[in-house]
């Protein structure tokens, strides 16, 4: 469905995306995780055809994507999207008119659920509500690929929970590829099927959450014991405090011994280890 081959994007000498090859074949909700400036927005905008890449190819449903594509079949929304200063209800109606195959009923349903005043003008809404309207417009579009860039920015905890439910509901209604970029990792875990971790312009991880649950561990103990237990395994990070060492693995679990403490990694810890930075400590 979405295929990126050796995609590189440079701004002058700085490479924002570095030789990315990625294939998303199945419909599902995918989470794009990355630190600030990791290249998330650039990647999403490139897939949406909102900007050109320096080299490589991007295809969506076999159609090559660039700014030259007059109709990409991709719906993308950024968190500070600008809209006409019109009442929300009118905005949703215009969106349904300019968008073929738009699910207007779903958009209205969402508006009611989020207790949005349809008569209130977009420019009079709070940041969170503005983001919600943009997200609603994007989700109600029945396009094959939906890209949501930081959709929960400015949402309170209740709105975030509602949003994740909405995301799941939208997917059930129209199964397709939905990619959500976010910083808030743990909350979205229940909703997504696969995880994409991007760091410094490269894809560091692309697999199911189940893979993280079954293969990501921390192993703590004395240095020699930890080194012996993890030798030959895929170590993604390491911490050392005094004589105690903790190694983070993405592999099969090492054999449990009395001198080792082995714990599964939380999604957040896994992400931190994958992107290799924690509190300024060296990886």
């Amino acid at each position, binding site marked *: 469905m979405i295929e990126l081959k050796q995609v590189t994007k440079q701004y002058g000498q700085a490479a924002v995306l570095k030789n990315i090859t990625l294939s998303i074949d199945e419909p599902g909700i995918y989470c794009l995780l990355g630190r600030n400036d990791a290249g998330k927005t650039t990647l999403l*905008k490139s897939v949406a055809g*909102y*900007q*050109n890449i320096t080299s490589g190819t991007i295809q969506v449903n076999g159609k090559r994507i660039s*700014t*030259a*594509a*007059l*109709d*990409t079949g991709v*719906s993308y*929304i950024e968190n500070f*999207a*600008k*809209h*006409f200063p019109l009442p929300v209800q009118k*905005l949703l109606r*215009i*969106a349904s*008119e*300019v*968008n*073929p195959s*738009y699910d207007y009923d779903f958009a209205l349903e969402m508006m009611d659920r989020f207790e949005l005043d349809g008569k209130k003008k977009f420019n009079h809404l709070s940041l969170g509500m503005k983001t919600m309207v*943009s997200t609603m*417009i*994007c989700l109600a*579009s029945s*396009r094959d690929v939906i890209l949501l860039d930081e959709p929960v920015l400015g949402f309170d905890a209740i709105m975030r929970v509602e949003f994740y439910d909405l995301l799941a509901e939208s997917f059930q209604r129209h199964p397709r590829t939905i990619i959500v970029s976010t910083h808030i990792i743990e909350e979205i875990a229940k909703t997504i099927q696969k995880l994409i971790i991007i760091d410094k312009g490269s894809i560091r991880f692309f697999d199911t959450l189940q893979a993280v649950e079954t293969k990501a561990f921390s192993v703590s103990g004395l240095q020699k014991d930890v080194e012996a237990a993890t030798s030959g395994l895929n170590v993604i990070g390491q911490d050392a405090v005094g004589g105690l060492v903790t190694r983070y693995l993405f592999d099969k679990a090492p054999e449990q011994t009395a001198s080792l403490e082995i714990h599964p990694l939380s999604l957040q810890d896994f992400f931190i280890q994958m992107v290799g930075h924690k509190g300024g400590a060296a990886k």
Partner: protein
Amino acid sequence: MRAIFAVVKRLLASNKISFILTALVALCATSSGEVVLSNGNYTWLLATLSPFFFVFYDFTKLMHLGASKKAYYMGCLISYGILALCISLANTAVHLLIDPAYSAQRVINLMDVCRWTENGLLLAALQQMVFLLLVMVFLHVLLSMQAHWYGWLTDAVLAAIICIFTPIAPLRRILAGFFRLIMLNGNAAAHIGICLLLSAALSLGGLAVLKRKTL
């Protein structure tokens, strides 16, 4: 087609400032003496203002509402056609109904200046319409290019042409000849044909610019 017409509706609806400014200028402009300017001339202001809104205000917002670039561009071209027709009809109506009511000896309406009225009012209105369409498409393309280096280059080339061609007599004749073709042309068929051809060529150029447009 539904999406394109929805874009047309939105473009025209969000063009209120242009409508109001044009109406204010056309209604409030006054001139005195034996030779006066027709108020209908000021309706052309709408043709120069609209592309600014379509390019700089509407594009991003329509994209964020999920419109395709194709629907946006087709919508713009259709809107320019509608606006050109409306402006032309308004100025023709002013020329027909209001201009004779002036007490001045001579009322200057651009339709006369451009020699379009030599062909009768119906053809003159059509000539005016295609000329205004050309102006709007030209402005749309020029404004769309401003975010790129080639937009600035085009500005510089246009400024250079005007600065160099105007003071040098043989070059000035070429420049005048060009304006006689696209504007001050009494030959209705040739004028309409040239304006439509240039509009089509510029529209294709505009499409190429749109294909490079980022968001």
